[in-house]
């Protein structure tokens, strides 16, 4: 199954569950409070997911390692390499 199908399946499952409760499709005579909680649920979920995404990406950008030491080490090694290669007869 492709990821696209997995997503469609997941979304339709949630959609069906939501429809059942909100419109009481099966005539379960659920207490009205269920319906009141259920009908704005998709919006809540979207907002919650949006917040989670923004927070996660923001946190990861803020904590993205800056490898200063790696850059310094590389610069030093470049110098060393150039000298050594010149000695070995490389013409750049």
């Amino acid at each position, binding site marked *: 199954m492709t990821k*696209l199908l997995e*997503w469609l399946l997941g979304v339709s499952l949630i959609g069906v569950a939501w429809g059942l409760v909100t419109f009481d499709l099966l005539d379960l005579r659920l207490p009205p409070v269920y319906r009141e909680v259920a009908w704005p649920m998709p919006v809540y979920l979207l907002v919650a997911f949006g917040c989670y995404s923004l927070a996660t990406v923001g946190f990861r950008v803020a904590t993205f*390692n800056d*490898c200063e030491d790696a*850059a310094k080490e*590389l610069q030093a090694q470049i110098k060393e390499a150039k000298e050594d290669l010149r000695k070995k*007869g490389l013409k750049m």
Partner: protein
Amino acid sequence: MASRKSTKKQDQGDKYSVLLPTYNERENLPLIVWLLVKYFGDSGYDYEIIVIDDGSPDGTLQVAEQLQKIYGEDKILLRPRAKKLGLGTAYIHGIQHATGNFIFIMDADLSHHPKFIPEFIDLQKEGGYDVVSGTRYSGNGGVYGWDLRRKLISRGANFITQVLLRPGASDLTGSFRLYKKEVLESLIERCVSKGYVFQMEMIVRARQLGYSIGEVPISFVDRVYGESKLGGNEIVSFGKGLLTLFATT
């Protein structure tokens, strides 16, 4: 280098072929080769470096020939092609000439540092992994020379990809990886994407085919010399590639 004791580990008979695709890397190639020789020499593993130059107008091939004289034809192999035919086919071309049972893929522009190679090899041996992928996004991994904008795009794209594809690897677009040779061959056969997306497709398909993936945190230092070749409409082609993988894998 001479002062460090080299522990010979050739008893297992493993050999590592490093594929170095180059296009206008005259300044970087000697440096990356020097570093590779240094770290492979220290660790004692058997290796070869395969330079696949696509007719660089800056004379990369001439530099490579000099390096071959210095380090020997058994260590540096030149497999040039007449013109620029792209990265994906460069790897295919390189594998055909590889004699190792493991293959390293890395960029020749010094953003992938050979000091991590022993870590890749150790992790592979520990876990018996089919693929070991370098990652900038977890553990001590990181980048150097990136501004806020680039970090944001990179992290954002990675997050969306993780959500949509759940690939089981943290760095999808990185191209510093170690593969078992037969695994790389079977993957490359299946992969059709170009550029960035190619690296992503490789790891996604690896997971799909049930290959095991290990990860080594790496520091990615932006290239010092030369120009970036991918460039252009990276974000658009990334988006298209992502959607294609989303619908087909």
